[in-house]
Each structure stands twice: as C-alpha cells, then as structure tokens.
C-alpha cells in the first residue's frame, strides 16, 4: 500500500476497550502508523480539535450520544471522511437513511481484511495523491490533464473517455458492470446505451493498448462489464 495512504491519521471512537484495541492493532498491522483513539463522544471531539485526524471510524452507539450526532460535530470542526462501525443489521433502513454523508459503514462482526480494505479505499478516494498518474501495461494516464502518455506520444482523452477510465481506475482490478459504466457516463436510467459504451471502449483501447484487439489493460468480462488492470 502507498506510504501516502498509510501516513494518514485515523481516529477510532468506540466505547468497547477490547474492540478499540483490536481495530487499532489491525490497522497498525496493515501499516497505518498514526492512530488516535477515543471512547466517548466528548473525548472524540477533544481529540479532533487537537490532532486533526484525516479519517474517523465511529461506533454508532456511544455512552454519551450516538455516532450520527458525533458525525455532525466532527464535520463542523473539520470536514473529514467518516466510516461508521455498527452492530445494526446491514439491511436496517436507518443505516442507509440516516447514513448522512458517511463515506462507508462496516457492519459488525467484520473480518480484519475487510476493515483494512474499506479504510484504505475511503482514504484513496478522498485523498488523491498528486500528481494523479495511473500506470498501465503500455501507457500512463494523467487524469488531471486528461492525457494518455504512450511512449513519446501524448494522446488527449475526450470527456466521456476520461470518465470511463476514471470510473474503472477508481475500482481498479475490479469488475465494473455495464450498468455502472453507463450510469457514470450518461446518468440515471441509461438503458440502451450499451452500444455507445462499446464504441467508447473501442476508442479508449486504441489510445491505451499496444494492440487494441488483444487488450492487456482494459479487459472485457463477457456480459458483465469491464476491468482495468493497473501497474501501480
């Protein structure tokens, strides 16, 4: 994992000392070094205003208030990404309804790998490393400039192509469904845009692949969607 991500300061708030210790040790094991903890809402607010964490993991139930109230108070001090840690069921409507602007939530009980993945995903999404250049098998993509650097050649990307690559890059290594790609490119209810999507993919491949008919980076998952393999 990037040292850039690992250097971020994480605040963990939970009233259960054993769980607090566990989460802390899981994150330390994964390489995060700057971790602060709090076991009440009061101490969490104090920690926030003193040490300015980059991300907070909040338990929904705290002895002196609930996580949602704490969320609002933390946001008023410093707008940072929040992950809720909850013992409520994943299907509990309150969670999604009252999710506010929370960046993610993890339902207890959780696997340590899951926690690390979620935390690093949120950090990566919220704190982009500058400059944002993505390395692929046969080129590099500079998202800020919307350019593909292929050897000595610099090829510009159109807005849709940029959006397509960005969506795939945000989920790099994972399958992104046709539906999600169409939604990213054309907004809500984009049924029937599959052919246009294919056309864009073809043009993107011409720009980023060495041999567009044998793609190495932008892989088709038949019937399902596409996956971008990166070299980062």
């Amino acid at each position: 994992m990037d040292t850039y991500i690992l250097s971020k300061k994480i605040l963990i708030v939970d009233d259960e000392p054993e769980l607090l210790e566990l989460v802390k040790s899981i994150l330390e094991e994964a390489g995060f070094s700057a971790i602060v903890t709090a076991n009440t809402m009061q101490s969490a607010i104090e920690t926030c205003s003193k040490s300015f964490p980059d991300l907070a993991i909040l338990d929904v139930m705290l002895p002196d208030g609930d996580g949602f109230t704490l969320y609002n108070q933390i946001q008023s001090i410093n707008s940072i990404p929040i992950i809720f840690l909850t013992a409520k069921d994943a299907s509990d409507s309150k969670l999604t309804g009252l999710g506010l602007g929370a960046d993610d939530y993890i339902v207890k009980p959780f696997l340590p790998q899951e926690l690390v993945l979620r935390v690093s995903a949120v950090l990566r999404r919220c704190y982009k490393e500058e400059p944002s250049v993505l390395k692929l098998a046969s080129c590099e993509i500079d998202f800020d400039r919307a350019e593909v650097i292929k050897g000595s050649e610099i090829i510009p990307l159109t807005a849709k192509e940029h959006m397509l690559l960005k969506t795939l890059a945000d989920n790099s290594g994972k399958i992104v469904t046709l539906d999600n790609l169409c939604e990213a490119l054309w907004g809500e209810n984009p049924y029937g845009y599959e052919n246009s999507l294919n056309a864009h993919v073809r043009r993107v491949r011409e720009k980023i692949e060495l041999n567009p008919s044998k793609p190495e980076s932008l892989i088709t998952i038949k019937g399902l969607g596409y996956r971008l393999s990166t070299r980062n």
Partner: protein
Amino acid sequence: MKSYLKYISKHIILVIFLIVALIVLNIFVFIATFNGVVSKDYGDFSPKNMLSIVSENCSKASINDVGIQQLSANNIWAAFIDKEGKSTWTVNVPSDFPKKFSLNDVAIFSKGYLLDYPVFIETNKDGMIILGYPKDSYFKLTNNFFSTMALKKLPMFLLITLLVDCLFIFMIYYRSKKKIKRNIEPIMNGIESLSKGESTSVDVSGDLKDIADGINQASYIITHQNVARANWIAGVSHDIRTPLSIILGYSDRIKTAAIDDSHIRNYSEIIESNCIQIKHLVSDLNLVSMLEYDMQPLQIEEVRLSKLVRSFVADTLNRGLAEQYALNFEISNDAEPLSIECDSRLINRALSNLVNNCVKHNPDGCNIDITLSTQDEYIKLSVYDDGVGLSEEQRKELEKPHYMNALDDRLDLRHGLGTILVKQIVQAHHGRIETPVTEKGFKIELCFLLNS
C-alpha cells in the same frame, strides 16, 4: 368461514319449526280437552237429536213413555205449543211455565232462553216442540247475524292472512339473518385474522361491542408480543455482534501471527470459519424475524433485475470466489429490459444466500449458474448448481415448516435459516419459489410477477 351463516339459518329455521310444532301441539291439547264435551254435548243428546227423538214419540196431544223417559234421563223438560199458542202437553216443565204463549213470547224465546233455560224448538204442521235444557248447559247467542258479503269474503281473507303471515315470518327471518350477518361478519373476520396471527381492528357497536373489544384486545396483545419478540431478537443479534467482532479479529491475529505450531493455526481457522457462520446466522435471524413480524418496511423501487444480477455477479467475483467454484450467468434478451417493483437489497440478499448455499453444500466445488428469464407474466431468477443436489428425503424436509414456524419439539436445524429468509423475501414480493427436479445438482427458481 361462511359456516356461521348456515348456523344462523339453521337456528332461525328451527325457531320457525318450533312455532309450527307448538301450534300442532295446541291443536292436540284442544282435541284432548274438548273431545268428551263434544261427544256429550254435541252427540246423542244434543238438541238436534233430542228434538227428532221427541218429535218421533209425540203428537199434538201427547208424548209417549219412550219420549218422557229419554227427556227425564237427560234432565230435559219439553212442551208442545199449538198454533194458537196454547201448550197442549208438557214434561218436567218448571212450575212457573206459562199455559199460553203470545206471538211476542215465541219470537223472543225461539232464538234464546225461556225462564233462563236454553230452549230449542222444532215446528211441524200442528205447532212446535220446545225442549228446555238445564240452566248453564248451553250458551245461546241471542243476537247473532253475519253479513253475507263478510262470509263470502272469509275464505279469501283467511288465505291472504295466511300468506301475509308467512311472508312476514320470512321477512323476519331474512332481516334477522342480514342483521346478524352485518354484526357478526366483522367479528368473524377479526377472529380469522387472529387465527393467522395477524393484527386486526374490529369496529362493531351495539350488543356485540364486548366481543369486538375482546378481539381488539387480543389483537393488541398479539401485535405487542410480535414486536417484543422481534425487538428481542434484534437486541440479542445486536449484542452478539461486538463480542463476535472481537473473537473474529483476534482469531485472525492468531492465524497471521508468527507461530510455528500448525495446530494452533488450524484451530484459529476453525474459530474463524465458525464465527463467520454465526455472523451469517445472526444477520439472517434478525432479518427473518423482522420480515416475519412485518417490522421491516420494504424499500420498494423500480429495479431492472438484469442490472441487479450483473452487479451481484460482479460483486461476488470482485470479492473473490474460491477457485473450485465457477460462477456463470445468463440473461435472456426479453428479460434484459424488464423491471419489477422490489426492494433491491432484499433480492440481492436472497441471491447471495442461494449462492452461499451452493458453496456450503458443495465443498468440493461446482458450477453455479444464475439465469434471468421470463415465463408468461413472470420474471424468473434461477440459481442452479451441478453439485451434490438433494436426496428425496432432503427435498421433503425442505417442504416442512422451518423450526421458527414449527410447533413440534424438533428444534434442530432442518435446513438453514438462509433458505427460510429467501422464502420470506420472495413472499414479501408476492412471488413464488419453485424447486424443479434436475438430473444433477440443485435448482431453485424465484418467480416475480411483472408489472402489467
């Protein structure tokens, strides 16, 4: 359920039958009571008979002994009056019996009484025979007359009265039945709801209000208990989650720690896999109880199932499936654009439970096929694995109620909670589940009605 209407009809008919029976009984009692009187007072010694006996045994001038004997035996006096009003002979007449009668006298007594004795007369060419019966033996109507018109109308009057009465009784029957039905029906519906364990509210005023209140109270108690039970399960599953997180976390620590002892590593893997089982159980249990007691409001929205299936398959593949499993999917062209009103999270959960089942039952690996197709007015989501499948007995077990719904003592896990959750999710969407027999493996189909 309409049996109570039959019950009411039966009772009303019984009442009508009883009324008729009572009338018949009355007739019998009447006959029994008056039988003696009729045979005596209207029999051999009735005025009509006695008059003919006397007239056979007398002339204008005298009466023979047979006549006298018959009269004396029955305590009757007699006299003969000729055309001038003079009495020619008498038998046992009272002492103040007149010797001569004027036209007026005859006109008065001929229809009534003579000296307070009820008298009966017979006229012949010579005069008239008068029979005097004992006082109080007969009652004579002295001034009776009927209009001919009235008498002519009598049969029609009786017939119409009878018909009107019958009609009236029928109307009473019909109205009572309707009224009872109106009052009883909400109560019966309420009881029916209660018998299904559903909450109900019965609004009935009047005499049956007490019963309605009782049903409402029972309904309140059932609802209250259901809520309490669902809350209890939610509470327990909530409280179990934190300790389970800690166990899972630390067993992972042991697994990844630098320990040489492979046994310990193995133990920690067993702890972890069991914890994951409890994790699934806890979340299934909570959702099952929420759905069971209608505590989980569905978040219904228009969802294109093809999109949902693709997203589910992509998520499953992204999360990583053990290499012995192959996940395939197929969406038919006609199913591709179709959408249904559903709670996508729940459908996703059902799919995930079904795929988990395939994995759980086939530890040696299998192909898992998810298919989305249409069948008549249904859209069909099927999950098939070519693994071990179900034996005939296991298939039967699947039909039995789950232990959460069963009342027998077998509280063993017949089939996973995951399956009952799938059933409930499909039920909540008014769909149906089919498990067609396949040559190999196991297939389950979830069918949802398409929006018309």
